[in-house]
């Protein structure tokens, strides 16, 4: 029986990054865009 995957936890660094993303936006940002930002940042 496989173990359930550990839930993802964002670090303070991630939060600072996401806040900076939101700061650059003038309209509400969908969750999809924040997820893409996290993935793009990693790449």
């Amino acid at each position: 029986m496989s173990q359930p995957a550990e839930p993802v936890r964002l670090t303070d660094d991630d939060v600072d990054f996401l806040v900076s993303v939101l700061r650059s936006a003038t309209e509400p940002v969908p969750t999809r865009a924040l997820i893409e930002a996290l993935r793009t940042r990693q790449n």
Partner: protein
Amino acid sequence: MVTVAPGARTFSGSKAEQANAAELFRLMQTVGRFMSVNASIRLALDSATEFFADQNISQKEILAAVAANPDVFRLDETGDVPAILATRAGTFGAARRVDRSHDFATRLMTPMPKRETGDDMLRPRPRLDSSWSIFDVQTTDLDARPAASLAQSFALTAPVEEAIAEAAEIEIEEIVAVEPARTITVPVAATAATDVSEASDADLEAALIERLGSDGQVAMFDGQWMLEDRVPRFSKGELRKLKDYIAEQEQPLTDEVLIQDVLDVRPRSADFDLMRFALNYRLSKEHRDFEFVGTSGQRFWSTSALAAIGTSIRKPNEIGTDYKYLLDEAPASPSYRSRKELSHVLTFYEFALGLLPYDSEMLELMGAPVMPNQRTAVLTFECPQVYTTYLVELRYPTPNRGGFIVGLDDFYTENLVPGALLSIRATDNDGHFVVEYASATSQSQRLLELEERKQRYVFRPTSFACGVIEENLLTEELWSSLNGEKPLDDKTRRRPESVVAATFERLGKQFEGGGYTANFAQLFAGVNIERPFSEKLLRSILENDDTGAFAKDPDGPDDYTYIPGSPA
């Protein structure tokens, strides 16, 4: 997933209080199973009391357990009804302590200690050439008239015979004690970026909601995010206008309607999306005056002044209790919006109250609740056959009450009969559905009705043009024994097994030996006259009966028998 297993946690108080606290904590964790770890789970005290009634735990005992464990539970009496608060983590967390030691007010009012100045810290003043120092005069002497000659009134003093330090030659010593060099330790960045390469979008979304959702500088509503200080605010006057407008319209209104009609922001306006987000976010913070009752596709807002949608024949709490069996049949992991369409045969109970059950199939057709503690969702059911769209209300399940959809009374009475076949289809808008019934040639039969004034069953000629499942039709031919009968008393009605036994007797098909036999479909229609049953529940009662009262009838493909005298 960080949760505290009730068994792993210790509680305070007497043994009974500890046991009750453990049960209460288990219940709270169930209520908040989809919430983040530190989010405050809220459960009305009345709901908890009702839930624990079966376990003979009184409200007083619940309150005692709450009082004995202040770290785990809190009692909130500020609202209309008392509520119990808890978190999945089992604690409310330490309050954030703001470090005020370096703010302006503290530094202004707290003088620095006086610095110690020893002789060696004094800086010698460079002396002028002694030839410049001629007089040693006290200023007070100048007031007195010289009694003698001017020359005599001055006392020449010897020039200062201190070492004449030429300024250029004196080394100005450092008088300030060298403070030890300050060492600023920069913590090594231990919080590097999270590796998201292996994480699914669903996991990342959950992580965003958990971390950013509780961050005060970020505003979030229904999958959209913005810095909180950039979200436009509304004045008290504007909030009052919104509330009054909803009350005037006498029905919940969507965010788009509110923005256009009250705030006068046009859909083509550049800031329409921003204002819509602001409206939804700001109203979600005004718990006392506004309640979100929408879906992602139709964001309805309601106020406490609005009348409830749907029947008043039976209270919503009682209907929810009738549907309690749905909690046992609910899937562990809901698959919202995984189903495009479902079919349903209308029962007498549903027809009488204008209901549909929020069973596992309906759950798969619907969207997930938008807000964490959302109680209801207003949906629109469009019936193209009658050119009408009905406003209905989905009441989400609670820990001890099943969910259901209410508000279809008019649709049913004008177009259908119990036994009619319905289909409900989802649309791209997760709050809007298309409901259709099978059309058929018009016919007339004597069908069961409950005479409201006398509260007795009667059969009346009824014309209908909808397709029906014959075995589910409550015709006088099949159910004649019900004519003139009263509904079942509450004691019988409360026990599903008793309702099944009574239905066998109502159908009246006896066999030799004094027992009754019945076809499953007819039984299903009969048990659903006064309280709801699912097929799964009915079969469970018929096939898992330890008393031997019910059994499979080998003479029919799907028949069952009931032998009275065996306690049901």
